[in-house]
């Protein structure tokens, strides 16, 4: 008796649910189809709470994606996302928008490993775990068809607890540049430990704390087959090749905890505001100075790290390169993208977008930087101050702890129409920013 009525109830509920879905679906289609029979872009009326400059709009492409890190878009506008951790054995997601409203309609997955890096060119999709880089052949539609047997290009990169993610980019000339983050804050004998001195010379730099170059067409390469292309970089998550300059450009996460490790030298406020997050234009063989120095953007100087005898004023690193742009401390640049699209106004062309993950190491001061920034470039050089491009990802006015932030920008990609995609590894959302003014 009870069983039958329960079944009836379930059936009725299912029927009702599907009727509502069908109704909603047909209503949406009617509303969105324009005269050409193609759906208009479903720009969010409130831009999903994201503040963008006048004339721009935000589309929520998809949500509930887990923790998407870097992202890339193929020539048909389909999106690949690398997940920090696989979900149901799938660490790469493939999203397609069938009807052209900007909202993903279908989702597929493959690649049973977590990671951060992903990149696409005409022939291959490249993706990284925390130790390896793989490539997958693309078909004529830019789709991975053989997803279970990728080529292993790079293997056995060091990966410990700290700064394990392997971001990478390509130069269009058959080379891969991969960040191997330093597994340390400041190369102390005991990491993040009060009173522990800096190791001299810092042994970590032999296998990490820099950018390594590998070939994009050779298999199973490791340190012996690669080349240390640049050193003295603590952890680079955002990097991109600048085709105007034909050079690698990277953004570094600056060191943490000046106050907790050296309370006599740095008060909490100073520690919240130092050191700068930095952008470097890299030439082969460059040294950015970590761990021996950090960059103080108030004094505009390379300052000797306290682990190596510094006191906040002594300068050092005469042979280390200078940053080309500095940003506020601790806001964590997680993606860099040089914009080459036609959709955005002229001033954005060839400039740099940077996705900032937002800070944690400013506590007890309030946290900052859950945003996408823009730096104008002319002839491959920064041509003005950095500016906030998209803000409000945190969803709250004041973030006192990162766990309160609704979204945290992590990855950037440019669509074939010039849209800018932003992934969020905290709320699991994918945004698409479009220019809507005629």
């Amino acid at each position, binding site marked *: 008796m009870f069983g039958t009525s329960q079944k009836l109830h379930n059936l009725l509920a299912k029927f009702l649910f599907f009727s509502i879905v069908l109704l909603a679906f047909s209503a949406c289609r009617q509303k969105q189809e324009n005269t050409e029979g193609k759906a208009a872009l479903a720009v969010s009326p409130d831009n999903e709470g994201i503040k963008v400059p006048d004339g721009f709009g935000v589309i929520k492409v998809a949500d509930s994606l887990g923790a998407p890190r870097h992202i890339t878009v193929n020539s048909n506008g389909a999106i690949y996302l690398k997940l920090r951790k696989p979900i149901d054995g799938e660490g790469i997601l493939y999203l397609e928008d069938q009807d052209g409203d900007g909202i993903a309609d279908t989702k597929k997955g493959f690649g049973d490993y977590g990671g951060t890096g992903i990149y696409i060119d005409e022939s291959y999709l490249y993706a990284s775990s925390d130790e390896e880089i793989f490539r997958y052949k693309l078909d004529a539609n830019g789709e991975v068809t053989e997803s279970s047997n990728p080529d292993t290009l790079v293997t056995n990169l060091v990966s410990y607890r700290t700064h394990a993610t392997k971001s990478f980019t390509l130069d269009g000339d058959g080379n891969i540049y991969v960040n191997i983050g330093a597994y340390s804050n400041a190369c102390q004998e005991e990491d*993040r430990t009060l009173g522990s001195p800096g190791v001299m010379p810092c042994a970590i730099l032999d296998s990490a704390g820099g950018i390594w170059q590998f070939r994009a067409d050779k298999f199973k390469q490791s340190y012996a087959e690669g080349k240390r292309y640049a050193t003295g970089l603590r952890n680079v998550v955002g990097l991109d090749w600048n085709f105007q300059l034909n050079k690698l450009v990277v953004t570094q996460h600056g060191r943490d905890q000046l106050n907790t490790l050296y309370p006599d030298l740095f008060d909490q406020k100073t520690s919240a505001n130092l050191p700068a997050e930095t952008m470097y234009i890299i030439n082969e063989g460059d040294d950015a100075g970590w761990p021996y120095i950090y960059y103080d953007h108030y004094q505009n100087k390379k300052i000797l790290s306290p682990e190596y005898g510094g006191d906040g004023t002594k300068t050092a690193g005469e042979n280390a390169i200078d940053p080309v742009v500095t940003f506020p401390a601790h806001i964590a640049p997680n993606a860099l993208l040089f914009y080459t699209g036609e959709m955005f106004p002229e001033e954005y062309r060839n400039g740099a977008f940077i996705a900032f993950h937002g800070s944690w190491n400013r506590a007890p001061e309030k946290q900052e930087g859950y945003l996408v920034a823009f730096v104008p470039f002319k002839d491959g050089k920064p041509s003005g101050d950095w500016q906030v491009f998209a803000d409000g990802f945190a969803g709250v006015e004041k973030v006192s702890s990162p*766990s309160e932030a609704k979204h945290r920008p992590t990855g950037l990609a440019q669509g074939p129409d010039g849209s800018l995609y932003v992934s969020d590894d905290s709320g699991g959302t994918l945004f698409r920013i479009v220019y809507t003014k005629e």
Partner: protein
Amino acid sequence: MVINRLLKDTIPGFLFVLAAIVLFYSCNSSDKKKEASAKTEIPNVSKTTPKAKPPPYIAEGKKVYRQVCLTCHQANGGGVPGLNPPLIKTDYVLGDKSNLLEIIIMGSEAELARDKSEYANVMQGYGMLGDEEIANVASYIRNSFGNKADPITPREVAAYRSATKK
């Protein structure tokens, strides 16, 4: 070693009784809240009840927390996703006292912290703090950020240290 086992053996039972008491009181108080909210329509009823004075380990523990824990574990105890573990409603804070003491004294070298490999940052050990400071900060953590658990006494810290040589 004996004291460690003693701690381990007696604490679960003690915790169970404590949990039961806490549960009983919290159920009671939530009932009271319901009653109070039902009464809110009636004017001139005072809704404030005098609060009990917090035990001294709250203020003393907070001092230590602000000095050595807050940067990483944050003012709300929420930690930092992927980097520093949260301290809110977790077994390593609220469970067996020896777990929390091991983490405070050994940092991420503690067995339990080594297992929590999803958090990337290293934590140093704070064994250089005195028994009283460790007891205060441990008790503060166990009774802040929505946590509720019985405090840890300096004597228990000393017993843990001499039993484990940590």
